């Protein structure tokens, strides 16, 4: 690689690509995620909320890519934005009745809920401010080119021995099977 084009990061990063304009991307994506999250919880129309949630998911995908986690980003697009949100849109179309768009949006307990959420936010901020020493400023750069291989090694095992998460992986597939069966049985007209 042409050394003149590298920025001053350690060599592990240069196995992939040199990051460019990181603060702009971070603030842009983070702002987009938070604004879309706000839109999700405040829209009256459920389809608008679903579209805002898709934008949030895509913004979080961008944040994953900035955190050198390309495989998690791809799984997020595939499963979340391409699968779960489609499911949500189908169900919204099936159960969306005209009456619901003229109902009240927020339930009667909304001040209590808001107060509880603000208390939670205060708790988070206290934890962050008091424990700032626990989050060291260093961020280790992880090589991007072998990310998938390493995750596969942890999930499936490599060099003849079982991976650390192989058992959990099999249980997760059982969980998905149970979820499929549950969803199918619950939506049948005559059980």
């Amino acid at each position, binding site marked *: *690689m*042409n050394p*003149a*084009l*590298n*920025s001053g990061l350690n060599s592990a990063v240069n196995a*992939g*690509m*040199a990051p*460019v304009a990181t603060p702009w991307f971070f603030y842009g994506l983070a702002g987009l995620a938070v604004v879309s999250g706000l839109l999700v919880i405040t829209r009256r*129309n459920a*389809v*608008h909320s679903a*579209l805002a949630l*898709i934008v949030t998911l895509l913004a979080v995908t961008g944040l994953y890519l900035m955190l050198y986690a*390309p*495989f998690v*980003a*791809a799984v997020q*697009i*595939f499963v979340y*934005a*391409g*699968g779960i*949100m*489609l499911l949500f*849109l*189908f169900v919204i*179309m099936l159960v969306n009745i005209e009456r619901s768009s003229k109902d009240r949006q927020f339930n009667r307990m909304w001040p209590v809920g808001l107060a509880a959420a603000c208390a939670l936010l205060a708790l988070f901020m206290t934890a962050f401010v008091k424990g700032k020493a626990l989050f060291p400023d260093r961020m280790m750069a992880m090589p*991007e*080119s072998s*990310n*998938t*291989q390493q995750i596969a090694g942890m999930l499936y095992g490599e060099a003849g021995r079982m991976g650390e998460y192989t058992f959990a992986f099999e249980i997760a597939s059982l969980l998905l099977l149970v979820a499929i069966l549950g969803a199918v049985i619950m939506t049948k007209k005559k059980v």
Partner: protein
Amino acid sequence: MPNFIMSYLGIKDAITPGAAGSQFWALVYVFIIFAGVSVAVMAMNWLERKALAHFQIRLGPMRVGPHGLLQPIADAIKLMLKEDIIPAEADQFVFWVAPLIGLLASFTVYTVIPFGPSQAVSDMNIGILFMLGVSSLGVLGIVVAGWASNSHYPLIGALRSSAQMVSYEVAMGLAVVSAILMTSLNATGTGTLSMIGIVQAQQQQGVWFIFKFFPLGLIAFGIFAIAMIAETNRAPFDMAEAESELTAGYHTEYSGLRWSLFMLAEYAAMIAVSSIAVALWLGGWLRPFPNLLQGPAWDFIFSLFPGLTFLGLAAIAVVGVVRMPSHSFFKIQRIGLAGFAAVLGFIALLLLIIAVAGRSGDASGAMSPAARFREGIDYVYWFVFKVAVFMYLFIWYRATWPRYRFDQLMKIGWKVMLPISLVVLIATAIVGVLVS
């Protein structure tokens, strides 16, 4: 100013602009790809109407330009000038945003398509996963379009179309996984998900994946080829959008420019999934017989192909000029077609000159810029040629086969393609372990 322009030409080993971190060249590539896809979509529109017509023993558009060559431009102008009708009860914002979702999903895929070993906008390590994931976002655009039209034909069409696309995505994914499995049959035992890496694995193993472990590669390719037709809602799986069935399905209420955005997204998705098939099974940018017929002589012969192709097209255009009736009404068409033939001939001449000039005497060592340029042209040409064959197959299928009923379609997707692709995957894994 010329520094970053010259920086690309000065790089010793060729890498993609994304890997080099060069935003300028990445943008240039993006513009080239965007222009190329737009031209390809227009050409595809023309070819579809002419080829369908000739299949049905009629002529197709003949009036607008010579042999209807300017018909796509006339269509585009007409669509832009049409009245933009939005249904009264429709959800305005969602109605507006639905074609954009489909368009974004279809066009974002082009950043990782490998036209050559360094001719991609950016070679992501998860290239194929990214392509499959982003093309599954196109389904969202269709669902939202059907919902926003607030009318029952589009809604049913959208639900059917999205159910079909989601069902065939599963079979597509499993076929792709069995191709990825074959990339790991090398010395280190590590496969790769990057598109350029997959084609390079085929080059390294000396066999296109469609011929590997015969007939497993062929069956996997066949499953992907069928699933990709269902994925793009083309005949014979176009129940959801065919005019005679559901009054054009999810894009019924769209008129003018919005409808053209849907068509653009559909054709772009067709080209994208065809390029996945070409890169995964048909050797991407590799010329035919890369290992069987080796040596600079064969390289030279195969590098004449781009020029000869355009020469053939120019010859066909000249034949069209000669056969045009010699009546004064046809004068402009004759001149137009002769001009088109001249342009094609000029391009053919350029390509032949490049092919001859890029002959490097020694097979190893530093290649002259002319040789590198010729190689780049050859890579792009073979890739585009194979994708063009797939496009013609799409049109051929549409002309030849009747369409499937929706329940037959879903039955095939879940009960036939999914088990076959699972069996092929397991068989490929077993054979791969036994061989190495």
